[in-house]
């Protein structure tokens, strides 16, 4: 549907004569100049409104969808969440809620071209997160929920992988990471001594491994540092991994932990 901006104020048409035409021209020019400069006092009217059910999202998908609240609370309250078609989360007045932040919004696909139209990534994985300041989200990669780039170095990346079930368990996967870093597998004592950190409602095993990183895609980073966290939920395992040159990764410890702490499960997930 063709839409148009609110028009310039109407100018009364003069009755006749050259003087009248000149006045009209000047008036139109003046109105155009006034409308183009500075803060306009014109208020654009919001003319479209509609009634929607408030028991769920305004539209689009809802119900048992992982990314959406089953039933949003009726009525609004400061700090609460309106049923606006978005997942229920804590909102703060005027500042918006904790942002969805991140994911790969439709990256690498044209919905009408038959490719994937990925919804927000928490829809895909049941996870939500906040991207640390200065980090940016990279294009979608296979088998990864999200890939984040903390800086400009292409060898430094942080990504989240979710696998069904135990996926071999934390021990075997950490040993696999040790292998990627050229380090020997952990002993029982070393594994038991690894710190645990609450993530997604369970204790995640944290690990730091230094060495020469050899990635599965053939990438290689000398003097690398790997920061990782592995946790096992009832139906899936979540792996968070930050790897790159040691000199670049060491200053990112706090950001990495903040990112891990920001992971949360979408309602219903």
């Amino acid at each position, binding site marked *: 549907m063709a839409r148009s901006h609110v028009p310039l104020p109407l100018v009364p048409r003069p009755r006749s004569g050259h003087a009248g035409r000149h006045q009209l021209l000047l008036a139109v020019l003046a109105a155009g100049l006034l409308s183009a400069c500075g803060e306009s006092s014109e208020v654009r009217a919001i003319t479209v409104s509609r009634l*929607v059910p408030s028991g769920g999202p305004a539209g689009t998908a809802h119900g048992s969808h992982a990314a959406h609240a089953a039933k949003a609370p*009726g009525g*609004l309250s400061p700090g609460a969440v309106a049923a606006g078609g978005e997942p229920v989360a804590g909102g703060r007045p005027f500042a918006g809620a904790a*942002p969805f932040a991140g994911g790969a919004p439709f990256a690498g696909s044209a919905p009408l071209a038959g490719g994937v139209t990925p919804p927000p990534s928490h829809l895909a994985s049941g996870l939500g997160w906040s991207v640390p300041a200065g980090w940016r989200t990279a294009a979608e990669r296979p088998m990864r929920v999200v890939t984040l780039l903390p800086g400009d170095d292409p060898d430094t990346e942080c990504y989240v992988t979710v696998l069904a079930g135990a996926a071999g368990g934390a021990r075997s996967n950490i040993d696999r990471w040790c292998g990627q870093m050229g380090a020997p597998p952990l002993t029982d004592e070393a594994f038991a001594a690894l710190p645990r950190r609450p993530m997604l409602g369970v204790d995640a095993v944290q690990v730091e491994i230094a060495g020469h990183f050899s990635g599965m895609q053939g990438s290689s980073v000398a003097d690398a540092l790997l920061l990782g966290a592995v946790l096992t939920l009832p139906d899936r395992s979540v792996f968070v991994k930050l790897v790159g040159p040691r000199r670049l990764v060491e200053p990112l410890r706090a950001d990495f932990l903040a990112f891990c702490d920001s992971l949360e499960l979408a309602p219903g997930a």
Partner: protein
Amino acid sequence: MSSSRWITAPLRLLSSVGLALTLILLLALLTWLGTLAQVEHGLYEVQRRYFESWFVLERVAGLPLPLPGGQTVMGLLFLNLLVGGLWRLRGRKGRLGILVTHAGIAGLLVAGFVKLSFAQDGHITFTEGGSADAFESYLRWELVVARDLGDGTRREWLVPEEDFLDAMPGAPVTLGAPELPFQLQVQQVMRHCMRLPKGPMFEVDVPVVDGWFLSEEPRLTEAEAEVAGAYLSVVDLSEGVRRPCLLWGRDRAPTTLRMAGADWSLSLRKERYPLPFTIVLDDFTKQDHPRTGMPRSFSSDVTVVEGGVERPVRIEMNQPLRSSGLVLYQASWGPQGAPPGTPLFSTLAVVRNPSDSWPLLCCLVIAAGLLLHFGARLARWVGREAATR
């Protein structure tokens, strides 16, 4: 020049074959330029710039080259067909078929214009068990002010993107409605940005609202992947107090505020179009080619609930659902590469196009016109041959 020539001269020009050829060549040129530009700018931007415009300023070797836009060319082509058909073929017997063919081609152009002006397209993305009563635009944004009325309904005030996208620092846009106790002053809109927390280790040159700011990102070639954001102030009309606000297109919850004894919410979201029915995804099926991960086919078994009546429908590739002026196609699914057992989502592309069936009708008209014309010529030739023998 006699007064009649003032009328006939433009009509001759408008109906000329030379004009038609020029317009077709211009259309080919726009298509070529648009194809080249799409590599860098994406489909949506190219469509908007080259084909949904009246005028294009192209640059060739650094020099500006003004060209008529797609709407201008196709509009003139429509007039050329119309006037050409009516004017040049007037009073000539045996040209009815050509006239009918012209009408069919003109109808195709009209169908395109109607789609451009009045169509709505978007998508529904849901998992099994999910339902939808609206579809969402791929590209268009809207500002939404909402208030729960407490009776199971919510009133939404909707601001289409044309009314706020042009806001910029120093030239804000003020929005208001008689029912609202406040006005929204949109100060800045970013077409693609990230909402980030402001930390102590760096400074930003944009406003920080409650510890968050919008970081503008480079535009994407795939416009549907962009996430818009906006800085605005909520101006209390009774107290004159301005409250800064930040909205982001991927916020998981709207911004809430209390004003004039009522609770309001603000959000920036993709434009939504209500459906005249509710659609429930009962089952999504994906079949892969044997021993590969490549999808062979995928389909959605849905239930359409309309007027209290439920009917099951299967939507699959090349078999869309047509209902109430809408067409729902099985467009895609995801997440790709997910481990077995991961819940899959189905995406249905939805189009509301008043001229959806017009191209088919116009093609039938064209075929009829060609049959009529060549059939008449064949009949005349047969008649002449019979007469000479």
